[in-house]
């Protein structure tokens, strides 16, 4: 029994090894390009890229394995590279950014904010262009949290790991992100139609 599970584990790891190498050979230079934009020095940028791959191999492989869309995979890798690079800069500067420093829009919406309720509300009432515009205005951390959770279907704890923050901070970002997006969309609707969409 133990032999069989090791064989199966070996097979899984063989595919995983090929997947990791494919990812490296396809995206490593793009990651390097991005890391250099933040870190400037090639040595530091290589360190950031290597750290991302090491983390994927040791902790986040389940997530990477589950990503089927090439654009999502690229976004995931580049986001991970960006976050790792920023953490390296922060470690040198020894400063940190807390959730409280992120500016809040006035939140006036009383919409239902469960995940399904949020998606239904947006889909039912909004057009693609309005949504794109509102997403562009949304704070980056909230937008990223919404992307990982809804588009890449990651759990809250997986999102927290990726964004190097606590589960509670991630939950807050999702709640606030949904509220803020709806608030922006309601504002868009008001400006477009001149009517209260409620």
């Amino acid at each position, binding site marked *: 029994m133990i*032999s069989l599970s090791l064989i199966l*584990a070996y097979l899984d790891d063989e595919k995983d090894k090929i997947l990791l190498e494919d990812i490296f050979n396809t995206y490593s230079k793009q990651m390097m390009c991005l890391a250099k934009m933040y870190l400037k020095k090639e040595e530091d940028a290589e360190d950031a890229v290597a750290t991302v791959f090491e983390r994927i191999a040791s902790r986040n492989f389940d997530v990477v394995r589950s990503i089927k869309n090439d654009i*999502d995979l690229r976004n995931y890798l580049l986001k991970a590279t960006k976050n790792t690079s920023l953490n390296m800069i922060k470690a040198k500067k020894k400063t940190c950014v807390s959730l409280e420093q992120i500016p809040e829009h006035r939140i006036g919406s009383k919409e239902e904010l469960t995940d399904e309720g949020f998606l239904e509300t947006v*889909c039912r009432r909004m*057009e693609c262009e309005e949504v794109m515009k509102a997403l562009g205005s949304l704070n980056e951390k909230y937008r990223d949290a919404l*992307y990982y959770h809804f588009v890449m279907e990651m759990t809250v704890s997986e999102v927290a790991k990726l964004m190097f923050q606590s589960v509670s901070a991630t939950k807050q970002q999702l709640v606030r992100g949904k509220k803020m997006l709806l608030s922006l969309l309601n504002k868009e609707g008001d400006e477009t139609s001149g009517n209260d969409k409620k």
Partner: protein
Amino acid sequence: MAMTRNELLEAIRKAVSLEFEHVPKNDSEIEHTFSLPFMKRMAKLFRKQEKAYWKYVNTAGKRVAVAILAAALLFATACSFKPIREPVIKFFTEVYETFTTCFFEGDDGKKAIEKEYVLEPVPEGFTEVSKSSDDATVVTNYENQNGARIRITQILANGVKLNLDTEKEGVRREVIEGIEVVISEFENRKQLVYTVDQYYIQVSLTGDFDDQLIRQIIRNLK
């Protein structure tokens, strides 16, 4: 008009992707050669991935618990595991303006080739057409009906030096099957150079070979 759920998810995906619009979308558009320390770090990571028990020993505590079991099972299971050993022969590359030199240093004490590397199995459509060998060199040629050719050259690695003309050929380093490989390309020819078990291996490909077939060749060369 209302949007569908997929349209909304696509809009979120697009909004996030916009952040990386300025990053070229293909690695081939980016001119960068990774440093040797970086490539060694990656090769080490990929070698770890190929060990069947990596996920069971990826913490210090698990390693202690599984060490004896793994040693016993290596003999008992039907899997083949590559032996874990430090290379005696070190593989270096030096990059100059117009050429790259690959060379091998070290002395494993070998005076003759003790194990011949052959393609097992041979890729579909290919057959062995010739083989020549002496104490220090084995050269095997394979061909298919379309005229594509694979030449495997195995040499005792100590002291081997190879110059690759980077003005004419595209030269890059990649990790394939956990092995650091130097690849040079010119017209319809590809050359892969690496070291394994103290031997210098050169795989020369003439014809149309995609990445999957190249990976298969490296994997089947044993």
